[in-house]
């Protein structure tokens, strides 16, 4: 019990003194996950809009696949990216394995289905409501997409936050393709896994606390954004 209490105390002091290791690891986590989120949005938002508005063969299948991929285990994605990026794999020549870039790629694959699926739902709902009015006005396709993204901004932001939550909290993919190399690819989740197995609970707890605070902040932000949107715009 004493050891545990000790670990908690050390964890707090690590956070309060902004311990160099802790800051570096948390920084890399944020860096990797935010970059992945940005790239995933650039793919996922247009994909979601397309699925919401266009009718083409295979659309239903794509929607179902994307929905299924939302629950894809990160370890499996990690394995897939590992195979693709490994020396003997198709993209082996780039030498990306065990680098932050590889981790970003894996997380992009994890986050795209979330952003695409959730944004499709948001856009489809808006489109159902707007499309007659838009046809009546003769709104062009480009203006339509922009209008739907803007009018769905609060719900879309919630989708973004869900994607970020998934990226920042997953262990499996970044562990496999990153390799948890100190000062290079060690992020919060992989560091926690390692420190716990080493029996060094203090750093693990400290990072764990940071992670919990981040997820809490993310979901709180999601809630507030939605609340604000509803109150202000009846969105």
């Amino acid at each position, binding site marked *: 019990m004493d050891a545990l209490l000790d670990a908690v105390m050390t964890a707090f002091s690590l956070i309060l003194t902004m311990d160099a290791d802790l800051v570096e690891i948390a920084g890399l986590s944020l860096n990797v996950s935010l970059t992945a989120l940005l790239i995933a949005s650039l793919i996922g938002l247009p994909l979601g809009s397309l699925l919401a508005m266009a009718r083409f063969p295979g659309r239903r299948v794509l929607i179902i696949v994307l929905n299924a991929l939302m629950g894809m285990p990160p370890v499996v994605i990690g394995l897939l990216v590992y195979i693709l990026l490994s020396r003997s794999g198709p993209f082996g020549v780039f030498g990306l394995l065990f680098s932050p870039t590889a981790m970003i790629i894996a997380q992009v694959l994890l986050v795209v289905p979330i952003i695409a699926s959730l944004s499709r739902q948001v856009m489809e709902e808006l489109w159902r*409501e*707007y499309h*007659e*009015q*838009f*046809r*009546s*006005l*003769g*709104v*062009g396709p480009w*203006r339509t997409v922009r*209008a739907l993204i803007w*009018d*769905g901004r609060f719900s879309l932001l919630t989708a973004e936050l869900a994607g970020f939550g998934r990226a920042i909290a997953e262990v499996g993919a970044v562990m496999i393709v990153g390799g948890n190399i100190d000062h290079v690819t060690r992020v919060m989740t992989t560091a926690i896994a390692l420190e716990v197995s080493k029996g060094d609970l203090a750093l693990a707890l400290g990072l764990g606390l940071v992670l919990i605070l981040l997820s809490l902040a993310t979901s709180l932000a999601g809630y507030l954004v939605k609340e604000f*949107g509803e109150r*202000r*715009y*009846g*969105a």
Partner: protein
Amino acid sequence: MTDQPLTAVSRGILPLELRNVSYQAGDKRLVKDVTCQFQAGHRYMVIGPNGAGKTLLLRLCHGLLKPAAGQVRWQEKDKRRVIKGQAMVFQRSVMMRRSAAENIAFALAARNVAKAERRERVEQALFQTGLTRVADRPARVLSLGEQQRLSIARAWALRPEVLFLDEPCASLDPPATHSIEKLLMEISAAGTTLIMTTHDLGQARRLAQDVLFMFRGRLKEFSEAERFFAGPENDLAQAYLKGDLLWWKRRPEEDCVQTQNKPNRT
């Protein structure tokens, strides 16, 4: 801001002619063989019981639906100009998640109205509909009456030659209905042609120059309002005016009507 008179931009897309227009969903024929002509500057009220095909007729005219048979022909042949010459107000107003003013500005931008003119027209449309006070409020938190007026303001800002209105007062109280009728008369006075469906016979009497009576997808009578309300030729229309037109069983033969011989409702 001066109370300048409304001016519609006349583009000469009218008259609009429907020739043997039918519409069907699945194997149900919902609009049957409608032939009629709409002239510039008139106020047309489309009346008839539920399911008569009034709303479908409006959508067919406006181009939101394609007829299964027959033709919808405008005088103007340039399709883009035909679209630009029309606007529609829907029964349930579609309010974008923006302020009242931005809702109007969006419609103008969609029709490629220049920015400077956009602002002027937005202000004018808000003023004319009495919404200046709520210009910056989000459209979706406005009252139903205000939302419907905003819908009309948005359509009116486009200066359409023809304005379609699908039951614009369906869920409004009498004062709100009155303010919208007043507005519609102003818009009509500016030269815009109104084609509107309504359930409210009183409203049809107040607004109509011409009446289209529909029943089960067919246009049963099309005549001047005065003549129509003095005594329609069609017996279904007579029954409808008396409030005696009942929905009766579907039979294979021509529309059958069940009328009751009860005293007129006063």
